């Protein structure tokens, strides 16, 4: 397919979209009468419902259905795939790594972001300091993976061989010997988690900084008059005031971390015992040709995300109701 042809196809698709929307709008316009508003609303909702149905609901149901079938997707095998995830030693390792990711990343990233936000708050170079830590957010996960692969890069300690990795260069300069950061489990997973924290801390910092600034000045002043010191201010004023923002940041990073794929795939390809659920799901479905197990892993990921989303929604409602 030539480039020109691709553009033509794209223009056709855009034209088709405009035409369909035009027809819907024209149709909706002709409807009037007492119950007209409801009908118009339904007509407007229709494309969204149809697209969500085709793009989300149907694949989700189909994935759940397929997770009860064998590798080729032809024979019903009950819950064997799920049984395998929770008994097979390789799959258990995947679960362990996912737990490590989800436990460490949100809390450390949020913690770093929060401390940073408080430290630079009202400092003279606040804008610059914030920009620096926010920059990694602008880098794609794959880009970040490649950057950190170089940071962790290993060359042996031999005459005539120069270190190319930043960390190992520092280690050697300090008189140590180079270390294989990405090879030894379970530490290699921690070194991958650091990359995610590096990316997400900026996000946490930005949101939390904004909500710290939104704390009413009179509360802060009242606390000061009551003789609250720095720690007390943090513990009894700042944190309670920004609690909704903290929850949003923690859960958002938590969900992002559960789905982490790019970093693992770019940096280790899931080798050296670093695979996580999302990466394993991809490998099983598209490389190992085990559709059933891949689907089961996808369902598991979905199930794991649900409680976090539910908690997030509840907190959001609670804070809105306040």
């Amino acid at each position: 397919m030539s480039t020109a042809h691709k553009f033509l196809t794209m223009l056709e698709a855009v034209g088709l979209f405009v035409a369909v929307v035009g027809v819907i709008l024209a149709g909706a316009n002709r409807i009037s009468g007492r119950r007209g508003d409801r009908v118009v609303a339904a007509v407007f909702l229709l494309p969204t419902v149809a697209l969500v149905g085709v793009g989300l609901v149907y694949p989700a149901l189909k994935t759940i259905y397929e997770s009860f079938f064998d590798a080729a997707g032809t024979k019903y095998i009950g819950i064997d795939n799920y049984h395998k995830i929770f008994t097979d030693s390789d799959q258990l390792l995947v679960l362990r790594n996912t737990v490590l990711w989800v436990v460490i990343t949100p809390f450390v990233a949020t913690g770093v972001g929060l401390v940073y936000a408080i430290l630079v708050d009202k400092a003279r170079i606040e804008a610059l300091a914030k920009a620096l830590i926010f920059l990694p957010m602008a880098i794609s996960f794959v880009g970040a993976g490649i950057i950190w692969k170089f940071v962790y890069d290993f060359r042996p300690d031999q005459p005539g061989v120069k270190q190319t990795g930043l960390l190992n260069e520092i280690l050697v300069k300090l008189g140590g010997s180079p270390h294989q950061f990405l090879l030894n489990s379970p530490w290699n997973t921690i070194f991958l988690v650091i990359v995610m924290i590096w990316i997400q801390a900026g996000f946490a910092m930005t949101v939390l900084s904004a909500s710290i600034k939104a704390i009413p000045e009179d509360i802060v002043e009242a606390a000061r008059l009551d003789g609250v010191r720095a720690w007390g201010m943090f513990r009894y004023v700042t944190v309670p005031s920004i609690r909704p923002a903290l929850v949003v940041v923690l859960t958002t990073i938590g969900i992002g971390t559960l789905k982490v794929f790019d970093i693992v795939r770019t940096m280790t390809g899931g080798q050296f015992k670093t695979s996580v659920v999302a990466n394993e799901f991809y490998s099983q479905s598209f490389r190992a040709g085990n559709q059933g197990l891949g689907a089961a892993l996808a369902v598991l990921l979905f199930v794991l995300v649900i409680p976090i989303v539910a908690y997030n929604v509840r907190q959001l409602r609670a804070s809105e109701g306040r």
Partner: protein
Amino acid sequence: MTTRTLVRRTIAVTGALMLVAGVTSCSSKSNNSPSAGGSTSADCADYTTYGNLKGKTVTVYTGIVTPEDALLKATWAPFEKCTGATIKGEFDKSFEAQILVRAKAGNLPDIAIVPQPGLLKTLVATGKAVPADSATSAEVDQNFAPSWKDLGSVNGTFYAPPQNASMKSLVWYSPKEFKDKGYTIPTTLDELKTLSDKIAATGKKPWCAGISSGDATGWPITDWMEDWMLRLYGADEYDKWVNHSIAFNSPEPTAALDAVGQYLKNPKYVNGGLGDVKSIASTTFQDAGLPILKGTCSLHRQASFYAANWPKGTKVAPDGDVFAFYLPGKTADEKPVLGGGEFMLGFRKAPEVQAFQRFVASVTWANLSEQGGGGRCVTPNKNADPAKAANCSDIDKLTIKTLQDPKTVFRFDGSDAMPAAVGSDSFWKQATNWITGQSTKDTVDKIEASWPK
């Protein structure tokens, strides 16, 4: 598999870049000349056997892409000119996934160029493939070793004649170092071991290796193990292992992996210029042979495509900076070769399709392919004229010579023929764990356990 082929292809392809300009201009020239159906001019003498195919079209679908597609098209041009037929090529990187989709949808080409026997079997199993006609079969009998015909056959029926081939059983070395130190090229596995010991005795780590390759990390070890399986136990036992007639953890494969371990897990042998044994796991396969140029490593086992991987300005020749020798058999008389190849599978029963299949199996085509040079040099056609290979690289010439050797027993990359759950997942993963410390027994046991029941 896909990732591997892609990586290899990309590398092989970059090497051929220089040649493309020349070839493209050639092919456009032949396109300009009037297409006279069944022309009797002297050039077309070899083509009269295919008859007059004026107005007929054959569609060919393949995963071979730029710049090699131009080389391939150039080999079709004389056929088009002399028979009047039109060969319509479709060159698609995602061939391996798409051909199955198209088979399901009933939207098949006349001919698919299939790069794996496993995929060939799957396609024949769809019931839409057409067996080769008797004339093509006879042409293949005449020009190829029987093992090539077997690879193009499914359940005893011959379907697809071979096209191009490649060789994996190669060890890269520095001719200069060998000359200076008085090392000789080993002709048996024992000699290879002796040579390694000799180099190790000088305090140098003789071998360098690397298996890192994104999510395909580990695949180079599958090639090592296949090479040793083939050498220690012969082609029949190798086939049994690949077909799973013997278990992956039975004594022979276990011993083969242990034999590989005597090289790759031997701290005295590896990893020249790259670190300890474990550094094999973190070194990309592309970087793994480069220490030979720096003099920190002497031997590197990798397929012929690695020729394109040396830095610009490296002379790859028997008297150059680097070259490769054939990874020897157990004895000097045994010549097992591990490699890859492509097969022309037909899906439409028509004279022009069968004529084109027969043409690709002919000596005429093999010579054209050799003449074009670049990544299309090597054909397993034993009657191809070696003199036509003048444009080919020295490595390709070595490959042609080895493949045409009557003693050569050719076997396909076995991991490609294994089920995907093994050949492109557990085999790689467990081989990687093996390098980072897992025992041979655990490794073969785990791979056996992952074999789909």
